[in-house]
């Protein structure tokens, strides 16, 4: 395709406008990432000089039983947490977008959990999920059912963590809320006149009009959930019996507990690969449902 002057001019503008990011990429993000890729082929104990070991770390990784446990847990936790987070935050945003008295207060309150420091959140949820006196099991008890040992039972620990992360998805909610402001009221009015019910309006107006924003929250939600480790570190530190050992936590352990940056980088790149797979799948699916104004 021969580039016309117009096309070339637009390309020049693209580069000019993207310049801040390009500089940042070279120095602050891309550069360090390349370094970490190189380190993943080394044995580097942080204080010694990195020593090139070729593919040794990757071979070790494939044979590392905990890596596979962590990969399984990461996929389970990541998918559950991201999905639950997007569903809850979208539902909350729709509710908060309804014109009702007191919405400013509701919006503020429902957003709050996501700005509370991790350590406070973790401390709180250890109590809320407590099998004996925790609030969650108390509520379950009202239904006449004995609640599980959320963080003490290996098969309930991840669901317990998902309940917690779902509740901290205020940022996604705000983004949805911002997106909802862009949905033209006229479309709803038209749908209403056609006699469309709330579900039909949601399906036929909200979702298509919001699709770029929903897509954003899904992609970002998956990236965040697959990398998550800080709350898990405070809450369970991978236990009980490795049931909450996720890759992010495994990277953290090698990087800042064992100080083996080489192997930590290797795990990180494996996690990177996993995130890419999920993201590419989402971009593939996006073609079917995400509606952009421009191609």
């Amino acid at each position, binding site marked *: 395709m021969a580039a016309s002057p117009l096309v070339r001019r637009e390309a020049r503008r693209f580069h000019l406008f993207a310049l801040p990011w390009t500089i940042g990429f070279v120095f602050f993000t891309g550069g360090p990432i390349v370094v970490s890729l190189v380190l993943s082929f080394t044995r580097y104990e942080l*204080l*010694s000089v990195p020593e090139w070991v070729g593919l040794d770390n990757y071979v070790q990784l494939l044979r590392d039983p905990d890596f596979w446990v962590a990969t399984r847990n990461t996929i389970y936790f990541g998918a559950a947490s991201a999905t639950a987070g997007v569903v809850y935050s979208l539902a909350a945003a729709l509710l908060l977008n309804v014109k009702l008295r007191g919405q400013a207060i509701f919006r503020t309150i429902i957003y709050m959990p996501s700005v509370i420091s991790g350590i406070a959140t973790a401390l709180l949820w*250890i109590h809320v999920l407590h*099998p*004996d006196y925790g609030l969650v099991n108390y509520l379950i008890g009202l239904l006449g059912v004995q609640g599980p040992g959320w963080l003490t039972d290996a098969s309930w620990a991840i669901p317990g963590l998902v309940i917690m992360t779902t509740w901290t998805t205020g940022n996604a909610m705000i983004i949805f809320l911002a997106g909802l402001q862009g949905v033209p009221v006229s479309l709803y009015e038209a749908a209403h006149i056609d006699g469309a019910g709330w579900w039909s309006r949601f399906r036929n107006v909200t979702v298509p009009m919001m699709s770029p924003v929903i897509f954003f929250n899904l992609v970002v939600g998956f990236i965040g959930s697959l990398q998550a480790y800080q709350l898990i570190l405070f809450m369970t530190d*991978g236990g009980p019996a490795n049931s909450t*050992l996720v890759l992010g936590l495994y990277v953290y*352990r090698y990087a800042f507990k*064992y100080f083996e940056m080489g192997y930590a980088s290797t795990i990180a790149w494996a996690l990177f690969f996993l995130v890419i797979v999920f993201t590419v799948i989402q971009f593939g699916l996006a073609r079917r449902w995400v509606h952009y104004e421009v191609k």
Partner: protein
Amino acid sequence: MHNPLRGLDTTGLNRRQLLSLAAMAAAAVPLSACGSGGRTRQAGPTSSASSGSEVINPDRPESALFPYDEAEKLFDSLPWPTTKVPEPTSKVTVTVAIIPGQRHEVRHAQFAKFIKKRHPNIEIKVEVTPFDDFRTKYLTGAASGVLPDIMYSQFQWGQSFIKNNLYLPLDDFIAETPDFNRADFSKAALSYWERDGKLYALGTDSAPKLLFYNKEIFDKAGAKVPDASWTWDKLMEAARGLVSGTGAQKVFGFTPVPKPTSDLTATFLLAHGGRYLTADERKCVIQEPASRDVLKRWMDLLIKDKAMPDLAETQATAKVEPFTLGRGALYVGGAWNIVTLLTLPAEQQFDWSLTHVPSGPEGRFTPVLGSAFGITSRTRNPEAAWIVLNSLRSYAGHRFFLDTPPSRLSAFEENLQALKLVKEVIDTTKESLHKYGTSDGVLRLPATPKLEDLTKPIWERVMSGSLSVDEGLKQVTERVTPLLAENV
């Protein structure tokens, strides 16, 4: 609340002394009207009870616990050490990286100010970082060559700091300091910072583990409290009989549950002739009969007798030691718990005391744990750093900082008396530190954190009864053995 007027017990605190101690510890509370709300930072090997805190005024640093004038008087009265290492001829700054503990921050600020009287060219700058993030911060810095002049280290970090050349050997400086009395330091404590015959750091505190007991629980059960004659067999027997209640009211016979962690050997195995790893930490011997048999008995105590907290119960107390909640009859814990217990709020106080850890067929052993300060290899002023470190960790320094229990024997009694402890407690602590306290078997080589993480899930299955002790120990050995090659 039993027998408040019983007077002196054999080894421990009577109620009145306890109250007066609590009052002392609580001195911070009323005084802190202008300071803190009576913080009870619990003591650790490095930080003693801290309370009373204010914004540190660099010209006149003080807190409720450490008024400026008293601090200055104390500083002036102490015999600060000398060295032949030359004084800096122009102004130099020495940075000291510590962990938080208000007692230390204020004290360090006062020390920085007063030391100028003796060393006018030395400016001390203190950097404070929480314990949990200390290595993250300084090792990231170290990777790029950024380090303070003097740096804190906990016993488990020492060997890897030294191996990675973070610390300078101190032997040359010591040779230049004729008054330096190395024998004054607890041998066990210094051993964490020795490598290839060289010494790399000077201890702050050295704490043995002791047997604490809750007298109220013993009285209620009509049982006789432990004393120095107790064996581990007797302790297990007693623990079995002291369990009561359920749920949030459950009282445990003994804590903590033995686990394959760094001080398993010294606390639970040596007395029975067993070990987790060999002394060089290169071979796992936990499957040998001596270790296996005693661990089986402990797991019976946990699983069959339910005399110790299981996994859910451990999680249930949200990481707080049941003994400090008044829910444990017997507890083997570090001497720093003394201060923790003394500074409990009034309504949570209970009648406790302590004695020597029990003995076993092979004798009596207790791990000695602690922290230290060393000079980093990146310092620009090694001589000034030595002058500061030598003062900081001298007898006078130990007295000034009130390290409890101190690494230096010469400061031992005075520092513990400052807590108004009864003589028996002081003597028990001192004896356990010097007669049978050991660093043997306390894991400190680089693979340790990895060993702890790898064996934890295995041991959790053993504790829940889903894995037999034999099978658990076999898996521990299999997982641990390949890692031990890293222990050099």
